[in-house]
């Protein structure tokens, strides 16, 4: 279906805005400061049972048998399920793999992999029941490191797996024998050899990063119930209620119309709540017992059972001329994905150099399975890990040819109309404006304090649109409710309400955003990739325009004039000219009041596959101090500069910048999964998996650049992903500037820093 709004967003640079660009209080904030907000673990249903999951103690094993008889006999236990209680779908297919991740069938693939679950009348009985389940395993050798998993003698996870895109001549993969490499993906442009031949300086390095966790403070929780007729209702914390419904329908073989997914308030997601874990298990337990079953993960289960990001290894080579022109770039990238594919690793080669206008690029990327929890998305999936390497070499090249860090990036910056290596031609973009703002800011212009180092890095994210379905209803008093099916991960409801209020010319307080369940709307894609505020803006402004058109028709009928005799401006319907006649202007509320006497309900819906997302670019500047005796790195000053297109709610935008940067600080300086020889995670708690606390970080300064996206009614781009992309590279570059040692591995935690400092000193002699 062609939508006028997708062709003509109505964006006007000179439009006078009354609400967009201000900072009203988030409507959902009130309940969040009083403790009244309902997160999924707060949902209590009559007759509710407690569900608990038994998890594998082994990283890789064949399940020989499971005996649940003793658990079933325990008083208070109402049901037990194992892999046998799930429909058999072939392994190696998307739904077959998905089923096996929520509950193992033939094999367990990582420590913490679910093997059975119980529903009981209390948590203590459920825990006791888990101990009574006897599982016999045949333990197999395991492999966790992605590079080790690619070796010819590595333990093979799936004997059926052959590498997709295997290329003769590439010894790392083979289409003929079993391999842990899911896919080989090549992407490039131009002639790399010729490009390097033109270069005056070439730098090649190898980098690696470890898995880190999204670290949302709310552990996954869900509560499922099943009616006598088999209708399923699920409350859960999710970024993707509609995707959950559709996948549940596929793996449980239940009609989608019989599954209602109701999203609760979401206690952080960052990509990690785009895939379900306990939800299908709770549903199967509820179907067996016909009672509501609630499963809430412990923190240890969150770490051991849900997706950290991909660990990576990347070899990157970049060459430039003495004048700063980059002539070629070459990369080989390896991504660890857990037991099954799903890392979205092709984002990395597409995005890693995008912001620099390169004519000759070659990338070869591999996605590799291994015995750790399956990867889940995290802000700009797979991109920050490789930008960590790219921006290190960029900084080194700038230093080598004696050019200012920002000037070097500016020299190669993509401008409007630039073509990416994935064959997209950019419209209006704001990378140059972002670099200019960074160069002009107080932080960059200030001298680097004595004893500290400064690092710069830049980053890019595509930003997304996608399927979005929403409704707008005008109440007879003129107030408006909007029903949205995308998740609200950090306060998008207020930003969306503001755009509606602006378009309708009514106060934002007159607009309420309601989180829909999946019965109420058409399909909505996952909230991810910085798509929600952008897409909802397009869809709900479309709704608002439909409602304005409808109201103009009603005004015309009230005045008994032709429709074109009514115009709408500043929240009022007026005669379009003197010849129409003299009528007192009607407000939205005036017309809404006459809902019954005109044509009945005033409402609109809009269902679109939204396009036109505006690419996002950012530049981070960071000063650090390094204690060479302890290896500790301290962040002294941090500035995020990013193009938002248009900041609908500037405080919210700044919050995205700051939150992303601090997550990146954690990833840079401490966060990693540590596995023992036995393949078990050794730090599945917040004490040993060390996320930044308030005293670890300074204030994060922000500069919002606004280069409007003309494909959006208000010019916005999306701001959620970019803030984490440059962070680790910027910090590593600052460390390099401070102590002459630029780390090539994450995290740059004190023990690892000490080791590198020791190696540096040994090499110096």
């Amino acid at each position, binding site marked *: 279906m062609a939508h006028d709004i997708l062709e003509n967003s109505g964006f006007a640079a000179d439009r006078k805005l009354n609400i967009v660009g201000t900072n009203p209080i988030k409507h959902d904030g009130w309940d969040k400061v009083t403790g009244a907000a309902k997160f999924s673990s707060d949902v209590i249903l009559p007759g509710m049972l407690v569900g608990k999951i038994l998890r594998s103690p082994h990283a890789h094993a064949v399940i020989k048998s499971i005996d649940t008889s003793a658990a079933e006999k325990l008083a208070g236990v109402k049901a037990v399920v194992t892999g046998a209680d799930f429909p058999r779908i072939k392994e190696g297919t998307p739904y077959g793999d998905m089923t096996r991740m929520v509950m193992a069938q033939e094999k367990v693939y990582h420590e913490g992999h679910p093997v059975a679950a119980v529903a009981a009348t209390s948590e203590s009985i459920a825990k006791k029941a888990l101990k009574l389940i006897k599982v016999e395993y045949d333990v197999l050798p395991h492999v966790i490191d992605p590079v080790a998993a690619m070796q010819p003698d590595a333990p093979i996870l799936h004997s059926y797996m052959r590498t997709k895109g295997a290329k003769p001549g590439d010894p790392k993969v083979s289409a003929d024998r079993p391999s842990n490499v899911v896919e080989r993906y090549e992407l490039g442009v131009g002639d790399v050899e010729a490009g390097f031949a033109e270069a005056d300086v070439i730098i090649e390095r190898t980098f690696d990063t470890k898995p880190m966790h999204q670290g949302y403070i709310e552990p996954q929780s869900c509560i499922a119930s099943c009616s006598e007729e088999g209708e399923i209702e699920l409350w859960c914390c999710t970024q993707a209620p509609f995707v959950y419904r559709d996948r549940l329908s596929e793996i449980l073989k239940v009609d989608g119309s019989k599954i209602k997914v109701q999203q609760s308030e979401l206690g952080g997601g960052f990509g990690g709540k785009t895939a379900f874990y306990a939800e299908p298990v709770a549903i199967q337990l509820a179907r067996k017992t016909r009672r509501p079953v609630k499963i809430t993960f412990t923190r240890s289960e969150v770490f051991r059972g849900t997706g950290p990001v991909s660990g990576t290894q990347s070899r990157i080579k970049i060459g430039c001329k003495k004048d700063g022109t980059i002539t070629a770039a070459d990369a080989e990238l390896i991504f660890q994905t857990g037991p099954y594919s799903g890392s979205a690793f092709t984002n990395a080669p597409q995005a890693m150099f995008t912001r620099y206008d390169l004519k000759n690029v070659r990338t070869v990327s591999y996605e590799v399975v291994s015995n750790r929890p399956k990867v889940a998305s995290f802000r700009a999936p797979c991109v920050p890990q490789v930008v960590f390497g790219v921006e290190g070499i960029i900084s080194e090249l700038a230093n080598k040819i004696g050019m200012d860090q920002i000037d070097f990036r500016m020299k190669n910056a993509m401008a409007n109309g630039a073509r990416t290596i994935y064959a997209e031609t950019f419209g209006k973009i704001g990378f140059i404006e972002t670099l200019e703002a960074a160069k002009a800011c107080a932080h960059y212009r200030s001298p680097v304090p004595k004893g500290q180092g400064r690092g710069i890095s830049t980053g890019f994210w595509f930003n997304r649109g996608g399927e979005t379905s929403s409704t707008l209803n005008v109440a007879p008093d003129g107030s408006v409710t909007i029903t949205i099916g995308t998740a609200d991960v950090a306060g998008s409801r207020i930003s969306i309400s503001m755009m509606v209020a602006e378009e309708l010319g009514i106060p934002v307080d007159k607009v309420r955003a309601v989180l829909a369940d999946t019965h109420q709307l058409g399909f909505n894609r996952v909230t991810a990739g910085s798509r929600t505020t952008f897409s909802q803006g397009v869809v709900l402004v479309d709704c608002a325009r439909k409602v304005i058109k409808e109201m103009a028709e009603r005004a015309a009928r009230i005045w008994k004039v032709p429709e074109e005799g009514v115009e709408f401006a500043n929240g009022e319907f007026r005669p379009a000219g003197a010849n129409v006649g003299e009528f007192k202007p009607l407000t939205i509320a005036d017309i809404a009041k006459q809902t019954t006497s005109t044509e009945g309900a005033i409402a609109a819906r809009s269902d679109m596959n939204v396009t036109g997302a505006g690419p996002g670019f950012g530049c981070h500047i960071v000063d650090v101090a390094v204690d060479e005796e302890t290896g500790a790195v301290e962040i002294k000053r941090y500035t995020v500069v990013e193009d938002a297109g248009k900041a609908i709610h500037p405080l919210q935008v*700044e919050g995205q910048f700051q939150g992303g940067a601090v997550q990146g600080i954690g990833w840079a300086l401490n966060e990693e999964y540590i596995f023992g020889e036995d393949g078990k995670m050794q730090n599945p708690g917040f004490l040993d998996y060390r996320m930044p606390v308030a005293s670890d970080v300074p204030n994060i300064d922000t500069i919002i650049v606004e280069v409007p996206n003309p494909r959006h009614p208000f010019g916005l781009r999306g701001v959620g992903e970019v803030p984490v992309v440059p962070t680790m590279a910027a910090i590593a570059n600052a460390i390099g500037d401070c102590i002459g040692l630029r780390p090539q591995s994450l995290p740059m935690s004190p023990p690892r820093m000490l080791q590198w400092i020791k190696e540096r000193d040994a090499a110096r002699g």
Partner: protein
Amino acid sequence: MKKHHITLTVNGDDYDALVEPQQSLLDVLRDTLMLTGTKEGCATGDCGACSVTVDGVLQCACLMLGVEANGVLVETIEGMAKGADLHPLQKAFLVHNGLQCGICTPGVLVAAKALLERNPDPTEIEVRYWLAGNLCRCTGYDKLIQSVLVAAKEMRGA
């Protein structure tokens, strides 16, 4: 499992509860008394989402057994506003966007209130160290810390 009878006062109201010996005060608040404003982020005392005060002392509710809470006075997030009147900290968090997803917010507010009761004029560094036991993954702490400082100023009448 044998349950123990305890009585406790939460936000000024007296409650009776039957608790299993291994249950924490957090379990009692959330599961027995159905006061779900206090959140569980880790149950090991590392994240601060379950911050409450017990007899006036800031505490992780997950680190105290329910049976230990017999006879104590507990203050939780539900007791912070007086009816429809929000505490200055709650107002400051709303106006200055000191929260995003909101899961850590109850614990942060309870902890911040305890700080301002003992130190009405904290420096930014003091706020950062006091709240170092409250993990927030969304905000990067900036606006959260600023909100506490604004509320402190307002409460001092400065």
